């Protein structure tokens, strides 16, 4: 049998590379969208507060480590997430709220009924701040550092597992012994 040209192995090699690539994709969620704003400051805004008469700006998200939770009364998953937020707030975690494309009266009523874990709530009635933040649904939670920069964005409900796996490592990295 005459010797093969080494080129005949090319299809096989190409296929193996393809298989490796496909294998790497298994188990990953193709829908998961990393935030484009990680490492960037919170976009500037000037919006009313839900609970008080003041106007809130991006400065209200500076000065300490805090979460920014995007929620609305029309969002069923937010109901599920709410008790965990209350738990975090009780542990001393600062959580700011972003009431996203919602109506203020039902929102206030909701907080009155189910508890208010938020230090302050920004009213984003038309969703413009959400758009600037790259929000595409509710609930979402951002982790913001004292300089007002976004460190992490989690889309979906915040629960104990997500908190431990995604948020705690970042917090501990930056303030050892901090809230956990």
């Amino acid at each position, binding site marked *: *049998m*005459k*010797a*093969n040209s080494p080129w*005949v*192995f090319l*299809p*096989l090699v190409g*296929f*193996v590379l*393809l*298989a490796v*690539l*496909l*294998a*790497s*994709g*298994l*188990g*990953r969620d*193709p*829908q998961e*969208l*990393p935030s484009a704003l990680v490492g960037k400051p919170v976009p500037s805004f000037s919006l009313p507060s839900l609970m008080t008469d003041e106007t809130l700006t991006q400065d209200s998200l500076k000065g300490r480590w805090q979460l920014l939770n995007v929620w609305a009364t029309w969002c069923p998953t937010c109901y599920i997430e709410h008790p965990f937020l209350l738990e975090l707030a009780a542990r001393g975690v600062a959580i700011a709220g972003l009431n996203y494309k919602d109506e203020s009266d039902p929102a206030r009523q909701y907080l009155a009924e189910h508890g208010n874990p938020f230090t302050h709530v920004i009213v984003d009635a038309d969703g413009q701040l959400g758009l600037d933040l790259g929000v595409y649904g509710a609930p979402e939670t951002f982790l913001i550092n004292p300089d007002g920069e976004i460190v992490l964005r989690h889309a979906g409900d915040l629960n104990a597992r997500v908190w431990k796996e995604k948020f705690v490592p970042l917090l501990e990295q930056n303030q050892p012994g901090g809230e956990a």
Partner: protein
Amino acid sequence: MAAEIGHLSLWLALAAALCLSVFPLVGVQRNILALQWYARPLAWVQWLALTLSMVCLGYSFFINDFSVAYVANHSNSALPVAYRLSAIWGGHEGSLLLWGWMLGGWAAMVGGLSRSVPLAMVARVLSVMGMISVGFLLFMLLTSNPFDRVLPWFPLDGADLNPLLQDPGLIIHPPMLYMGYVGFSVAFAFAVAGLLAGNLDPAWARWARPWTTVAWSFLTVGIALGSWWAYYELGWGGWWFWDPVENASLLPWLAGTALIHSLAVTEKRNLFRAWTVLLAIIAFSLSLLGTFLVRSGVLTSVHAFANDPERGAFILGFLIVVAGGALTLFAVRSSTLTNNKGFKPVSREAFLLGNNLILLTATFVVLVGTIAPLFFEALDLKISIRSPYFNGFFVPLTMALIVLMVPGVFSNWKRQDGRVLVKRMAMLAPAAVIAGWFGSRLPEPSPWQGVLAIMLALYLVFAHVDDVVRRARAYGQGFFTGLRKLGRAYWGMVSAHCGLAVMVAGITLVSFHEVERDIRMGPGDRASIGEYDFVFDSLDNYQGPNFDSTRGHFQVSYQGEPVVILHPEKRTYHASGQIMTEAAIDAGFWRDLYVAMGEPLDDGNAWAVRIYFKPGIRWIWLGSLIMAFGGVLALSDKRYRRLRFANGEKEATNES
């Protein structure tokens, strides 16, 4: 009881498949004719067992047996019978059963229709198909069993078939598509069998070719049906989205088209054998890859079935065994395939080589564009790829392909006089340019890409007409007698190529000249596109078998004359609560008028209505059907019918 019988039948099919994979090959290896002989009956047994499984699953759907998980997830007692039965392939597990059943069917048919093929070859081919069956059956039995029961707490009624699937399209699109996907396994099996044999019989291509052509035809129809279905069902008038699942069907089609042409060269001149074998392996591997992409959750798609990494891992493993195994065999054995015949640079072989290169590049573009997001994700870069990328390549590639098709059809095998060729091509060009120039100004002037596309499409058609006329006359017995003497294979080629021209013309027309309007309309309002007027007459509600509908009535007129009344709907399905947009389409040869209701505005007093004018869109599917018809014609050529009587080698030289 039916589900248990169906399940047991799958195990029986697996047993048959295992025997089929092993014994005939042993028989070939050790020259035991009896074992080789068993290949055909084993293939039949496998298929009969699979048929029993299909019947059992269908029966479970028919009697609304919601204790079977698959039935509970995809059916409902209010679902019309036709959809209850086609729901068999409405979900992951059942569609796998369809795959397996068709694979068994093809194997049985290969067994039945291959009397003129030497037994050893048949044994090898069926064994390979048996091995593939083993993979699918294991996949079903181990991870995706359609017969699993939900006991003891089974639902009183099912979750209903996804409303998007409650459509005649479901009844026909998947079966056609799968016939194509699965059909390429035959070419694959022939390729692997040829490699195993260690020396490729000159008649090999003649055996493999009809199977490949028919699979290709089915796939063509399947893809066209999918496009047509998406067009009227998805509500926004698109006919191709470069969605990963759509791309998954296009990949084997492109490779399959290259394969058909390569097989032509191999059959005719016993050349390109290694390449043809490789293409056959690639085409089927792409079918399997498509299966993987659709079911593994690796890519995002509106069409995706299951998103289960575990199942994905199984298919990937299967793909690695099948494709990896075949490609390794190819690498090791391909030296047995080389041939030392020659041909000149201007010859049909040369042009077909060019055709293959273009089709291969097109396949590669689709593959890269589909898989790339995965690749870049590994580099932490999340990107999206769709029309801009694909069209950017496909448009020039298609034009180049058409440009090569004409000299390919005109040229002789082995050597073609270049000057004669150029003269012939040049003679036809002016007619195409002039007709194309005028044609592309309808309904109004197109940009240069459109003009070029129409000119090329016309050139292709004129070239074939010219070729038909010359060949018919060449018999010297009068034009019509000559026409009748032209073989069906030849007519098949003419038809398929002209089908492509029609399709390209349709795509060009609709891409450059469609008009869309998004309008807020309440009853009494009127809108217009060109000379067409649409008046929103009224709105009413009615109840369907398993849905509630709000229906609009639109009076359409052209230049004041009434044309049609269209009834778009917005349906809410009871079982799932899903809301569906049913577009109303007035289909015409030259144009479609398309009206769909978007969202209700102003508390239901008005609607956001989308109105489209789409010229030439039907030509896309018409062209595809003409292409597929060409494949069928080629199959019925007399040289295949003669295979029933004579022995292999004698046929190779005289007829073609």
